[in-house]
């Protein structure tokens, strides 16, 4: 090179005061002239930050449909990452739940006669599914990574509450959609909602004393047994869905919530109970 960029022009370039033509001229020269290039002090911090930014974009894990949907709902990205790993939110689980609900709806629609008894199967199953989903949201037998995640600071109540809420909302929504296709009177189609909520809260409260995978089937079994007894003994087979029973579910749900808040620190399945 026979000439070099004057120092005042270099200073103007670095400060962004040159017009576009001169800027291009300086850049063309600098790309071929080592002495002029060395006049620029590299900004290490900027370089590392920019490179990190590039890598961050490259490494960004590909988001699935569920993850994108949850992000659009405004849930923070780090929470969404925790939710998408929930075993009970996997496609196989959702498909299984959908299939069971579909079967219950079809049996109600195709059942013979006008007897409201044909809705009983749906009403028996719909509250149990969210409970089972909650049980399958967190634990050593349902989650392959459990042994690793149980020793992290998010383990226990935080993660269990997060995942339980997610699967509860999902399974209740599926139940509501299924109920819309039920040829039943309006009140009967939603009569399972309060029992479902009460059972879920009770199973979480019981999980402070035993594993969720034991608590959920236990309560689910109690629910089915209560239903069978009511149908067998009472003149009104829908007595467990009547106004008095619904008030009882509200009361039971409140009681379970109180126990849950009181004992939430024991929701740590890694610990001996």
């Amino acid at each position: 090179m026979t000439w070099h960029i004057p120092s005042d022009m270099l200073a103007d370039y670095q400060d962004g005061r040159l017009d576009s033509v001169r800027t291009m001229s300086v850049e063309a020269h600098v790309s071929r002239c080592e002495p002029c290039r060395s006049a620029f002090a590299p900004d290490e911090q900027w370089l590392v930050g920019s490179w990190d930014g590039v890598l961050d974009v490259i490494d960004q894990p590909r988001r699935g449909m569920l993850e994108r949907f949850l992000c659009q709902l405004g849930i923070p990205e780090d929470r969404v990452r925790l939710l998408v790993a929930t075993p009970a939110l996997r496609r196989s689980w959702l498909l299984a739940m959908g299939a069971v609900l579909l079967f219950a709806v079809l049996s109600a629609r195709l059942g013979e006669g006008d007897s409201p008894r044909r809705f009983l199967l749906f009403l028996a199953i719909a509250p149990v599914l969210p409970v089972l989903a909650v049980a399958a949201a967190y634990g050593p037998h349902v989650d392959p990574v459990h042994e690793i995640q149980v020793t992290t600071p998010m383990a226990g109540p935080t993660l269990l509450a997060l995942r339980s809420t997610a699967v509860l909302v999902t399974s209740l929504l599926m139940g509501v959609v299924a109920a819309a296709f039920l040829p039943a009177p309006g009140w009967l189609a939603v009569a399972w909602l309060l029992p479902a909520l009460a059972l879920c809260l009770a199973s979480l409260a019981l999980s402070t004393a035993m594993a969720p995978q034991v608590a959920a089937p236990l309560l689910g079994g109690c629910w089915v047994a209560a239903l069978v007894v009511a149908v067998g003994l009472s003149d009104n087979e829908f007595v467990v869905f009547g106004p008095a029973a619904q008030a009882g579910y509200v009361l039971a749900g409140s009681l379970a919530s109180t126990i849950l808040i009181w004992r939430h620190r024991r929701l740590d399945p890694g610990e001996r109970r």
Partner: protein
Amino acid sequence: MTATVRITGFRKSYGAVRVFDGLDLNIGTGVTGLLGPNGSGKTTLLRCLATALASDAGELRILGYDPRDPGQRTEIRRRLGYLPQDPGLYPHFTSFELLDYVATLKELTDRRERHRAVRQALTDVDLADRAKMKVRKLSGGMRHRLALAQALLGDPHVLILDEPTVGLDPEQRMRQRALISRLGESRTVLLSTHQTEDVTALCERVIVVFRGEVGFDGAPSALAELAAGKLWLTAEPPTGGQLYWRTGDNRYRVLGARPDGGTPATPSIEDGYLMLVGSRAWVSA
């Protein structure tokens, strides 16, 4: 030695089976190896220290925190890296996604910072080029290295590693040892292993656990010394009921009383370990 892990009167049972009945140990910075036969309680002890399992009685203190208290347990977990014996991984996640998930569980909420930590952990275990590969497509050794990588996330002060080199080829085992050794310079690393070579290469202290008790606690060289004067090489198998095995050069390595025609041999850690555990097993049999 400043103890970062204190174990006092530790007891643990599974039903009627008592695994530990009053274990006392102090462990400080550096790499400490835990040796012992299958079923001796190594994994139980590590799981209790990693807060995955609660003790029945006694006192555990990790970095001064008590794992029985929920708040202090979380403080331990913030400073802990744990590699379980049989680490399960989500097969449908990529290596990067899996570490990203664990990093989130370790409260690395800032995405850029989290991704930087994940990249570093992948580089540390030599899996940077497998970042986008699904876990189910990784080989067994790679999966094990990925499991170790998750333990390194969050810059833990205490690392609890249950058989960190199992299933690795010799080259990867060497790299893993170099990494663990480097980590042990400033952290407490407690590892359980069946590989006595790992203990020789890595540990400045070795603890042999046998039937719920500490059978040996000292330097690896001192463990090898237990077999000094009790190890022999012979051309024929011994007839005195000693423990022996045939070596690659068709001779017999004999542990115990001197056999006929036996010449003294230099003991290794494995010989010392067999001397210790074998003799106890014989005594109690």
